[in-house]
C-alpha cells in the first residue's frame, strides 16, 4: 500500500535524519530571498512557493569555492587542498526542475576528468523533491519534456495530498530508499490520492526549435541581434539557472600566500572569452546570447544527449529586462515554416 509522510511528522523526520549525521536542507526565506538552506526544524521551511529564488545548484557548485591554499617558500610551494564539506545531506522539498537541473550537469562534471567538488557532494546528498501543484507564468518544464512531477535527479518524489497535510512517498533510487528506511516508522499507509500536479502549458515546440538551431545558416541570422537587443549583459539568468555551470578560477592573495578559488562565471560577460590580445570571439551581446541558447539546446545535447535546461523559468522570471529562454524559443517557433 502507498505510504504517506504526514506534515506533522516532518519535525520527527528532521530529528531522525540529523541524529544519523545528516544535514537537512530545504527552501528557506531569509533576508527577503528564498534559497536552499540548512534547517533545524520544519517550521523554517518555506514550501508553499512556486520555487525558491536561488536554484539548488549552489548546494553542489557554490558560487565561490576555495580549491587550494598556497604558501610560497624559498624553494618550495606548500599547497593544501580544500575539499567540500563532508557529511551526508538530505535536501527536502526540492523542486523537480531543480533536481533534474543537477542531474543534467552530471555528465559535464564527469566528462573524462571528474570534478570531485561536484561528485563528492552529489554522492552524499539525497534529493527529496516535492511535485509542484503550483506554477506561474514562467514555468516551462513541460516544454522541455519534463513535468511538474518528473523524477529526474530526485531520489524521492513526494506528491502533496489534499489539505497540505502530507505527501505521498514515491521512492526513486536506492539512496532515497535508504534515507526513507530510517523514517519508515513515521510513514503511514494510505490510499489517499495526491493532488494533481500543476498544469504547465507547453510554451514552445522544442524539437522544431532545435532543428532551427542546428541549421548552420541560422547561426548568422539577424534574429540573434533582434532578440538580444535589450539584453543588458548581466549574469542573473546564468547565475540563477540550475544548469549553467561556467566558472572562473581566481587567485586571492599575494606572491607569498593566498587561496585559489573557483567562482561562478557567465557567458553573458564580455570578458568571459576575451583574449589577452584584445580579440574577443564573442564580442557582442547577441553573440553571447546566441552562445547561451546554442549551448543549452544544440551543443550540449549533441554531446550528452540532454537538454541543458530543466524549465524552471528563473531566467525569465528574474530578468531585469524581461528576456529569457522562453521568449527566445517562442520567437524561434515563429520563424519556423
Amino acid at each position, binding site marked *: 500500500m502507498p505510504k504517506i509522510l504526514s506534515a506533522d511528522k516532518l519535525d520527527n523526520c528532521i530529528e531522525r535524519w540529523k541524529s544519523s549525521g545528516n544535514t537537512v536542507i530545504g527552501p528557506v526565506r531569509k533576508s527577503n*530571498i528564498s534559497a536552499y538552506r540548512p534547517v533545524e526544524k520544519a517550521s523554517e521551511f518555506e514550501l508553499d512557493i512556486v520555487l525558491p529564488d536561488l536554484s539548488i545548484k549552489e548546494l553542489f557548485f557554490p558560487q*565561490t569555492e576555495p580549491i587550494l591554499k598556497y604558501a610560497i617558500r624559498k624553494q618550495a610551494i606548500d599547497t593544501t587542498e580544500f575539499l567540500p564539506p563532508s557529511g551526508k545531506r538530505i535536501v527536502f522539498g526540492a523542486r523537480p526542475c531543480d533536481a533534474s537541473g543537477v542531474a543534467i550537469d552530471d555528465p559535464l562534471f564527469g566528462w573524462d576528468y571528474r570534478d570531485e567538488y561536484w561528485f563528492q557532494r552529489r554522492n552524499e546528498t539525497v534529493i527529496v523533491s516535492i511535485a509542484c501543484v503550483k506554477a506561474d507564468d514562467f514555468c516551462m518544464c513541460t516544454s522541455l519534456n519534463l513535468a511538474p512531477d518528473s523524477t529526474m535527479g530526485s531520489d524521492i518524489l513526494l506528491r502533496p495530498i489534499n489539505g497540505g497535510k502530507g505527501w505521498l512517498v514515491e521512492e526513486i533510487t536506492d539512496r532515497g530508499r535508504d534515507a526513507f528506511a530510517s523514517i519508515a516508522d513515521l510513514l503511514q499507509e494510505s490510499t489517499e490520492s495526491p493532488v494533481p500536479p500543476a498544469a504547465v502549458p507547453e510554451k514552445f515546440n522544442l524539437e522544431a526549435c532545435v532543428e532551427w538551431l542546428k541549421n548552420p545558416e541560422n547561426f548568422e541570422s539577424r534574429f540573434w541581434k533582434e532578440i538580444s537587443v*535589450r539584453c*543588458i549583459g548581466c*549574469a542573473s539568468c546564468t547565475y540563477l539557472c540550475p544548469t549553467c555551470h561556467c566558472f572562473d578560477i581566481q587567485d586571492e592573495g599575494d606572491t607569498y600566500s593566498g587561496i585559489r*578559488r573557483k*567562482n561562478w562565471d557567465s557567458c553573458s560577460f564580455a570578458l568571459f572569452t576575451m583574449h589577452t590580445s584584445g580579440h574577443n570571439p564573442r564580442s557582442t551581446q547577441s553573440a553571447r546570447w546566441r552562445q547561451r541558447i546554442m549551448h543549452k539546446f544544440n551543443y550540449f545535447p549533441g554531446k550528452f544527449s540532454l537538454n541543458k535546461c530543466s524549465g524552471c523559468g528563473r531566467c525569465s522570471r528574474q530578468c531585469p529586462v*524581461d528576456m*529569457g529562454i522562453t521568449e527566445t524559443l517562442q520567437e524561434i517557433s515563429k520563424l519556423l515554416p
Partner: protein
Amino acid sequence: MSIEVQYRNRAKELLSNGEVKLVVGYTGGTTPERRRPVFISSAEQVDRLVLDDLCIANLSGYLVTESLLSDEKSVAVFLRPEGIRSINILAAENQLNPDQIVIFGFEPAGNTIKALDGTNALEFSEFVVSLSENPSVSDSDPVIEKLEKMSAQERFSFWQDEFSKCIKCYACRQACPMCYCRRCIVDCNQPQWINTSPHTLGNFEWNIIRAFHLAGRCVECGNCDRACPVNIPLRLINRRMAVEARESFDHFAGLSMTQEPVLASFKKDDSETFIL
C-alpha cells in the same frame, strides 16, 4: 487623446520623416504587469509601444550602448524625470551628445502618468530645477531612518546580511545608466583591487565601491534595486550618497548638462570639520 497614443503618433512621425533612426520605449512583457524595453526602428512598428504607470525602468542606459550614437543620427527615448536627469549627467560627462536625443518625457501622477513638455534635454531645465527644489519626497525612507538609529556594529551586521546574498551577477552595474565604463574597476586585474569572488568580503568591497562611484551621479531611478535578483536594498545606499552630495555640496545629480560632477570638482571653502 491618451499620452500613449500621442507619443505613438509622434514616434511614427519622427521615424517616417527620418528625424530619428530609433525609438527606445516600452512594450508589454511576459505577464500583464510587466513592461519590457523595446527598440522601434520603423513607423509600422509604433503600435508596439506601450506607455502607462507600469513603465518604470530608466531606459537612458541603452543610449550609451557602444556605437549607437556614433552615426550622429538621433534617437528618441521614453524617459521619466530621473531618466531626463540621467541624460544631463551623461551629457555632462561627455558620454553622449544631447542634441541627438529626442525625449518622450512622462511622470507619474497618482495612479496614472502625465506627459512632460519638451523634446530636448535643455527644454526640461526648469522642470529639473523644480525637482531639485523638492527633493524631500525621496529623503524620508523608513529603512534609512531605522538604519541611522542603529550602532555602527548593527549597521555593519545589517549590510553583512544583505551583501552575503550578493552573487556578483553585476545586474546592478549592467542596469545602471551611469555604469558605462568600458572596463569596470572590478574587471581590472592589474592590480586587482576588488576581489571578484562573491564571498561577503568581496561583496562588501564591490558594493561599497560601486556606491562610491555613483555618489553624486545616481539619480535614484531604481534600476539597480529592481534588477538585483537577490533583493539587496541598493536604493538605500545610493540614496544616502545622494543625500550626502546635497547636504555637503549642494549637489543635485543631473541638474543640468553643464553641471560638474561632484567628485570631479571642488570649492575652496568646502566643509572640512572632520579634518584634524
